């Protein structure tokens, strides 16, 4: 009968492990006897006694693994020894709670099927991590800001060449496969696909669509600079392309500040290729120009949501607010010397939208982020006449969390504005959803209650019933302290303007 042998050099196994392998070998059919031992002096003696000694074992040493197998099937089984030894190697680190990975490579070892990276580290470090993520075929949502334009262009080109999404930099909101990412809301799933170069814009339109009975298939953020000439709309166009291919998406809804004319052309071409009904809100763009590209143009975020839902064949009902009646009520409350509205916003897109709406009713509009015919505040920290203040701008956020999370700056400003005899109305946006403050009522209710005799409060609440803060609860709480709460920022802005117009 054949005894076959094998030497594995330079691998050390403890004897208990080897006994387990020995047992495995012995269990195989057609094996009469076997031994697998380190080549120590003692073990060699054992092999000899067991009649398993082979000439090829001569000259081996302590760190050599000696395998001897006797039996009809020895030749077959001996080829499996490496596999048996491999079975001894750890599959996972049993009994050890996995430490948090400190590198992407380790993270991908732990989660090999990962398909998206959300990156929110300091901007100067972000490009390197983005590149690593793209190299590893991950789609990327890049929340970080302060990423250079050059890096943005370079990385978006890499992403494009690999067929990956790079949402951002400075992308605060996206909804992918029904999952709200970063600052986003829990909305119905449906057949409206969005591409947005504006985070708050995406939140407002997606929640309104959901509240109107429509639903979102995908909502892709691109970061605000994507539609500038330099970036050329790389991801905006990629987004449209994806929605065009997506069978779930029947209507496309685009949200942005006006794209650069060259980018606008490319967007129009892509929309045409997509062949799906498309509505766009390019805040501040001439609607006629947009329509000339074959895209339905809305003038407000609310309008865009409504048009998108209607394009899916649904009727939007119950969203007409009796603005004229409410305006009369407000007018009756304010004194002649109360002449101005002060909008204190946490969402940058709302600041733009409100200015554009007011410009149809009012003059003397100032802002720290002026749009259209508005003037720049002389001092960003001091309101003038009708003012729209974006509290998300750098002068308010350095060393502080975003105003959607931290209301302290807004509360301070509300107090100041309410005590200004010239101020009639304070306009607020309350943005719900993940990422935002989980209990906004507790932040603003008291300051509103203490000041609602001096000024009128008008607000919009961006969110849904499914959001962790629950929209109806927040609305009811605000109404309890006399706030005029409207369905959208556009309507709230209009109300304030008409009341003073």
């Amino acid at each position, binding site marked *: 009968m054949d005894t076959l042998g094998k030497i594995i050099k330079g691998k050390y196994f*403890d004897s208990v492990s080897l006994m387990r392998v020995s047992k495995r070998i012995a269990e195989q059919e057609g094996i009469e006897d076997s031994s697998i031992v380190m080549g120590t002096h003692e073990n060699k003696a054992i092999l000899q006694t067991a009649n398993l000694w082979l000439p090829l074992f001569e000259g081996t040493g302590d760190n050599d693994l000696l395998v001897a197998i006797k039996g009809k099937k020895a030749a077959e089984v001996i080829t499996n020894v490496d596999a048996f030894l491999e079975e001894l190697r750890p599959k996972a680190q049993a009994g050890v709670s996995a430490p948090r990975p400190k590198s992407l490579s380790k993270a991908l070892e732990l989660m090999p099927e990962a398909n998206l990276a959300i990156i929110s580290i300091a901007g100067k470090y972000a490009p390197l991590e983005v590149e690593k993520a793209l190299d590893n075929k991950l789609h990327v949502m890049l929340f970080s800001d302060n990423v250079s334009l050059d890096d943005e262009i370079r990385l978006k080109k890499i992403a494009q060449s690999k067929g990956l999404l790079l949402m951002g930099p400075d992308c605060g909101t996206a909804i992918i496969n029904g999952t709200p990412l970063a600052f986003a809301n829990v909305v119905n799933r449906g057949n409206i696909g969005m591409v947005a170069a504006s985070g708050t814009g995406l939140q407002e339109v997606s929640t309104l669509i959901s509240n109107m009975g429509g639903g979102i298939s995908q909502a892709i953020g691109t970061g605000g600079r994507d539609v500038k000439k330099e970036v050329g709309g790389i991801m905006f166009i990629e987004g449209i392309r994806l929605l065009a291919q997506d069978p779930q998406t029947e209507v496309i809804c685009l949200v942005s500040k006006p794209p650069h004319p060259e980018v606008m052309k490319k967007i129009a071409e892509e929309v045409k290729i997509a062949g799906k009904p498309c509505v766009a809100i390019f805040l501040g763009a001439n609607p006629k120009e947009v329509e000339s590209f074959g895209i339905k143009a809305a003038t407000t975020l609310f309008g865009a949501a409504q048009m998108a839902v209607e394009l899916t064949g649904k009727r939007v009902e119950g969203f007409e607010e009796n603005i004229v009646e409410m305006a009369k009520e407000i007018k009756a409350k304010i004194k002649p010397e109360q002449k101005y509205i002060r909008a204190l916003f946490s969402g940058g897109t709302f600041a733009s939208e409100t200015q554009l709406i007011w410009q149809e009713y009012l003059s003397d509009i100032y802002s720290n982020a002026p749009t259209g015919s508005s003037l720049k505040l002389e001092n960003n920290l001091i309101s003038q006449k009708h003012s729209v203040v974006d509290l998300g701008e750098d002068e308010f956020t350095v060393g502080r969390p975003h105003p959607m999370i931290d209301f302290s700056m807004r509360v301070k400003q509300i107090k100041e504005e309410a005590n200004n005899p010239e101020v009639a109305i304070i306009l607020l946006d309350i943005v719900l959803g993940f990422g935002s403050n989980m209990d906004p009522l507790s932040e603003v209710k008291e300051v509103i209650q203490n000041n609602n005799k001096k000024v009128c409060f008008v607000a919009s609440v961006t969110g849904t019933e499914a959001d962790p803060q629950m929209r109806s609860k927040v609305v009811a709480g605000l109404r309890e302290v006399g706030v005029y709460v409207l369905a959208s920022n556009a309507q709230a802005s209009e109300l304030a303007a008409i009341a003073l117009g």
Partner: protein
Amino acid sequence: MSNLFEQKLKVVNIGLESFQDALAQTGVESLQMDWKPSLPVDLESQKTIQSHKEKIEIANEKAIHCIQNAKPVLIGMGKALDVLPNMKKNMFLHAGPPITWERMCGPMKGAMMGAMIYEGYAQDAKEAEQKLASGEIEFSPCHEHSAVGPMAGVISPSMPVFIVKNTDKGNLSFSTQNEGLGKVLRYGAYSEDVIVRLKWMEEILYPTLKAAIESLKEIDLKSIIAQALHMGDEVHNRNRAGTSLLYRIIAPAVIATCENKDHMVKVLNFINGNDHFFLNLSMAACKCTMDSAMNIEGSSIVTVMARNGTDFGIKLAGTGSQWFVGPADLPDALFFPGFTKADANPDIGDSAITETGALGGMAMASAFAIVQFVGGTAADALRYTNEMYEITAAENNVYQIPSLDFKGTPTGIDVRLVIEKNILPFINTGVAHKDPGVGQVGAGVLSAPALPFQKAFNELGKKLK
């Protein structure tokens, strides 16, 4: 486009943890990364190293092959002057990168003074100090003579050394005999009892061991280390198992070869009474192993980490004999009664060759008996070793960790990974008093300083260009 819309979303979150909390609430599978910025390095070097990725990987494979295949065996003993390459009568070797007398730390000065008295070059500490300062003794790093020394690591010409051979490549390494703990030369003590012990080690211990080793022909150190890891040593701060295993091998040989019964008893009791006796041999084994990967062009594997109590120096396989140096840090230590951190000298000794060679801090998960140094729980020890896999190129083929299901120890520190992940090698160490003449005050742990790794990375980039 890989069709993201048709896949189940699986997210790696790098940054704000609240984003992951939200994902958890919506039931999406996600993993939070513990992100740190990379260590800053020269942009040019970074680009070069990135563009030479393939070449570096091939070189590293070669280096790892040498390391894995090295087989260090103890083959004999000799006097430093007789066996160390380029040793001179007026030369004292020391731990760590090169250093002048002026910049030497207290314990190293103390050890040098002790060596002067031991060699008979000075009558007392004062004379020793004067002569050392005068420049009549040449100082040179152990590492430049294929040697390693723990703590101050002083090797003077008449000190006996072990001779270890890597039978794979044939290269040799050397280390002194371990003196034990407490007031000893390597911790900077030089009192009379220290010198008397050193003389005994030269006159009695050395010839006795030499004869025993020669009668055994060779002692396989790699096999002892592999077993010691299974027995609760990490083979740097804990050498109880390694020493015991060595004792089992050497004791019968001592008895067989030593004719003087008094010497025999004293020698065996000396080894038996010193849990760290094996340390110097594990260091020499690692030195021999890592030297086999020297001068592999393009390799980013670290071959030396060593400290002289003032500076911390490293070498790379791909940058030849060049040292990359930065200030040595203070260890985070547990102190003997009566001592505090204020007494501690910055990190010192060539013993970090054990970490370089896949032992010590790398193998912390093997040594649950000494987890007090790393936080007190077994989980802490596992965490340390697990983290080291992030910066190493391979898992050892012989050294294994039972608690990690016999996974090989983290082997071959890759300077690129250290820079990219900003994870520094974790080192176990003894702590010397900062003043000469006092000795050991504690033991502890620390992470290697970043600067030497940054410098090494930059130089590797330049060399590849």
